[in-house]
């Protein structure tokens, strides 16, 4: 009898009523899956190339894009695409000139300030701002799922085309240059790739928390394995686990999904980190 009670509670918790029949939860799960997988693909190169800064700042530029779109009353996707792709190109140009410090920081502040201005002008206070910065699952509409899928497919296609040259230029730059790989073009295309991922992450987990989804799973996976394919597979699994669990918990509690997603991702990282530390300690003791 007691056992049944526990099982019932567990069942209610893992499969709360309405989880699978609510349309927006389906939308959220489909979008979350696409976002987690593409973020892993691109995050692999973000970690490998050490451009975490770009991953940190592009979503903030995207925030200004969506806010601007609400003022001009165009679809958010248009604002996101314009600002993220342009922002990515500008950032890759700035970093090539070795100017990522003050100018970039101030440019970012300008983008955030512009977002603030747009929100004020559009009189879209409070909740809209919150949704843009920290994500919102309730609001994901059917067309938005289609858009995410389309952007996800484009991102994956571009990633597949770029995979070999990008890996080559990242791992063995001099050799790649000698073989005639066009570095500047690759840099720009990679910035576009990161921009495309941010287009998808901003509506789901928000401008301020997309960074963790892009970096976290790959960083965790590369603590365990050094092989590229294994890293990608493990990171994909970790990212999916994080976003699925976060959506479930958000549905259960009504709390924001971004909070759960970042917490789970950071927990995954910490657990693996501590596990590895214990393992090396034990190996040294023997």
């Amino acid at each position: 009898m007691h056992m049944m009670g526990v099982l019932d509670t567990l069942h209610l918790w893992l499969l709360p009523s309405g989880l699978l029949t609510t349309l927006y939860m389906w939308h959220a799960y489909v979008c979350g899956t696409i976002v987690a997988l593409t973020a892993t693909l691109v995050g692999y190169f973000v970690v490998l190339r050490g451009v975490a800064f770009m991953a940190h700042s592009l979503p903030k530029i995207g925030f200004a894009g969506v806010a601007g779109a609400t003022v001009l009353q165009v679809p958010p996707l248009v604002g996101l695409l314009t600002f993220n792709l342009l922002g990515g190109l500008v950032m890759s140009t700035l970093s090539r000139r070795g100017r990522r410090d003050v100018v970039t920081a101030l440019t970012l502040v300008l983008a955030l300030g512009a977002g603030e201005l747009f929100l004020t002008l559009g009189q879209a206070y409070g909740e809209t701002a919150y949704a843009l910065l920290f994500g919102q699952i309730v609001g994901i509409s059917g067309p938005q799922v289609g858009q995410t899928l389309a952007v996800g497919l484009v991102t994956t296609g571009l990633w597949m085309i770029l995979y070999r040259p990008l890996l080559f230029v990242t791992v063995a730059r001099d050799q790649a240059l000698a073989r005639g790989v066009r570095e500047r073009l690759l840099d720009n295309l990679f910035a576009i790739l990161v921009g495309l991922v941010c287009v998808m992450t901003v509506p789901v987990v928000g401008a301020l928390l997309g960074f963790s989804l892009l970096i976290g799973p790959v960083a965790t996976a590369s603590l365990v394995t050094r092989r590229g394919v294994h890293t990608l597979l493990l990171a994909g699994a970790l990212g999916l686990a994080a976003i699925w669990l976060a959506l479930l918990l958000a549905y259960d509690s009504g709390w924001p999904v971004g909070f759960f997603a970042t917490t789970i991702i950071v927990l995954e990282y910490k657990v693996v980190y501590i596990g590895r530390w214990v393992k090396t300690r034990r190996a040294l003791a023997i």
Partner: protein
Amino acid sequence: MMYLDAFVHSPFWHSPQVWHALFITTSAGVVSAVVGVFIVLRGQSFAGHILTDVGATGASASFLFSINSWYGFLSFGLLAGAGMEALGKRTRGRDTATGLVLSFFMGLGALFLFLDTRVSNTADVTMSVLFGSVFTADPNTTPWLIGTSAATLLVVAAIYRPLLICSIDAEWAQARGIPVRWVGLLFMLAFVVAAEDSALAMGALLSTAFLMGPAAAGVRIAHRIGAAIGISALLAVMAAWLGVGLAYASYNWPPAGRGYPCSFLIADILFMEYLGAGMAARWRAHIRRLGGKRCT
């Protein structure tokens, strides 16, 4: 003359909110400008990011317990500063682990902000924590803010020379018998106050403008550190007053007639000052080159 008269007798000067806004932005601006020069020298701009982001989490929590948000900023900022001191040299901007911990705090802040809207039914908490709200700030904050800013300036003045030597060359400072660790600790304290004051004035997301903008401009223009600090403080005060003035004037600006956000205006002015400083530096170098040619 007519304009001057209108300026002096403008209702701008009779509004207590305006005076509070002026005091808050000026004190936050001056202390950030002075501390900022050392931040630039020590290359610690990423630390400022950490301090304000974690501070924002504290501010979001403070609304939950209806405490003044400034205490939230300051207490969490002190925690973050202590954490960075404890980790020492391991905190690096490129470090993925640091970025992840940071986004964990942002996530926690998201939760607090969400709960704030549930508890207090004020949806604008998000905007005021992240983007600042000098016109609607709690008037009780102002004396505290001015007091801590003044105390911080005194501390920086007291340790000015050892701090300068430590910032330029820590090993040399050690060899000269300067207690590098204590100087670093005091500076971290000053850094926390500057970052959190400017986070309160500008909002957590835009506070970088005050921390980096004037200092970077000052360092670009001046060759001596003392002059750089002076110019930096002057630029910060200019931006603060101009920003508050424009924000006040903007209530009937197109397109909406709803007023432009003050922190946005200050950030824009600071950016322009930075660009102007770059131009001034280049122009001066050009003049000097011309002068050099004439001499030889």
